[in-house]
């Protein structure tokens, strides 16, 4: 399939990127090449094949629902942010 300029803009929106014009152009070329390559799976007949999403051989690993001591407390986590106020993370206006 052909990747159009609008497709790149849509994918950038889904990915939360604000792309400058020259990046849109180069991504259009790059993504077109990648999608052409991965489209070779079209050759495969896999209608009757079950999909595999993971290769871990155990299922339903349960644990007790209990509060355990953690390495990082609230203070340590808040210290990682750019700005905090009253034990909360400060961000620019939302609306």
């Amino acid at each position: 399939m052909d990747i159009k300029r609008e497709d790149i803009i849509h994918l950038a929106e889904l990915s939360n990127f604000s792309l400058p014009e020259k990046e849109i152009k180069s991504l259009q070329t790059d993504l077109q090449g990648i999608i052409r390559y991965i489209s070779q799976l079209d050759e495969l007949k896999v209608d009757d094949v079950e999909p595999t999403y993971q290769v871990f051989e155990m299922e339903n690993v349960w644990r007790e629902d209990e509060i355990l001591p953690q390495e990082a407390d609230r203070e340590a986590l808040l210290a990682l942010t750019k700005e905090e106020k009253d034990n909360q993370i400060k961000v620019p206006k939302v609306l």
Partner: protein
Amino acid sequence: MKVANKKVTAERLVRDALEKAKHFEDYHIFTFINEEGALKKAREIDQKIARGEKVGRLAGVPYALKDNFLSTEGETTASAHILQGFNSPVTATSVAKLEAEGAIMIGRTNLDAFAHGSSTENSYFGPTLNSHDKQRVAGGSSGGSAVAVALDIVEFATGTDTGGSVRQPASFNGIYGLKPTYGTISRYGVVAMASSTDCIGFFTKTPEDMDLLMSVASGQDSKDMTTLPDYYNDSVYKKGPAKVGIIKDFDNDSVHPEIRKALKNKVELLKSKGHEIIELEMPALKYGLAAYYILVPAELCSNLSRHDGIRYGFRSEKSKDLDALYENTRNEGFMPENKRRIMIGNFVLSSGFYDAYFLKAAKARTLIVQEYARAFSKVDYILTPVSPNPAFKLGEKVDDPVAMYLEDVMSVSLNLAGVPGLAIPAGETKEGLSLGLQLVGPRRSDKALIEFSKELI
């Protein structure tokens, strides 16, 4: 590996490693040097030894940590701008296990940002140079770790392997690199790429060192629900004649002639030692790369959605509102290759394309799993190249994503199937570039791979 004792102090071992790191500065291996922290730990170990107290199996052994492992020593950046300034309050389980045995981290190593790449050129900090030829790439994504071991700066280094990121740089630098069975070593505290294929692995100079590290790091972790109960330390290796498969589909003109020759030489060596060589046909493997570059971007675009500039790392300051903050931070913080992969991930998961790409790739993955199972009903091990070419020139492929992806064509299928692979040194080209092969086994055969690799020396 050299472990500290009464005669050789940990401080001496650490000082030597720090000096060598400085000497090889121009290779651009490290993103952080842990001089103060490492020397402090070394002195503590030396005091223990002087007092006659018990020390760990890795006492005073200097090592290098790929910069996508979280620890409280140095910023964890994954060589990405968006994580700059991130001082982790938590430590990866694998790091904690190594350090509990006395290993000392002397530096964090360079990688392709978020481990996206096969050359370490996608690092925000610039590329690491190959240990055998400074005009060439180190391989990737764990390029810094591989070169740190190859130049003998440290005894071992950690890596992550999602599609070849340990094995390929190991083979580009002439050392051992193991991608264990999926779930063998805890992924807790390691920056996630693709959760269903990510594996923690190591770089070493000998199989014996690899065995020791696996023995330390393997085992179940309550913080990673996809860890297997420790099977490694219970594994029993039976010495004796083995059946070794070679893959016909990988022996053609697309593979560099000197790599084909290296494989042939090792096959002859195995025959001379009484092992049986069996030719395998594994036609599904050729779809591995396409399936990989659908499934892995799908998983990583989800894993990387957490990087929003709010809670840690870099935040773009020029944003008026919250949406702009997300977009500017991500646009400025990710490298071009990160953006390609995130967007491909969102493409293959989009409604309308999900069935044609993601679902089809997940079905192709089933064929690959089955193909390996069939192969291992006939042979004990498979011996293949790690990559089609030895280390390529810096800048040669970095602007051509598909050409770069094709370097992974022989390594990714192991990750899709969850089986282990050990990269082993296999000589050098006429120009002096290192050559590597990989020994592949069924799930949980990690110990046997390491032991059997001694037959290939």
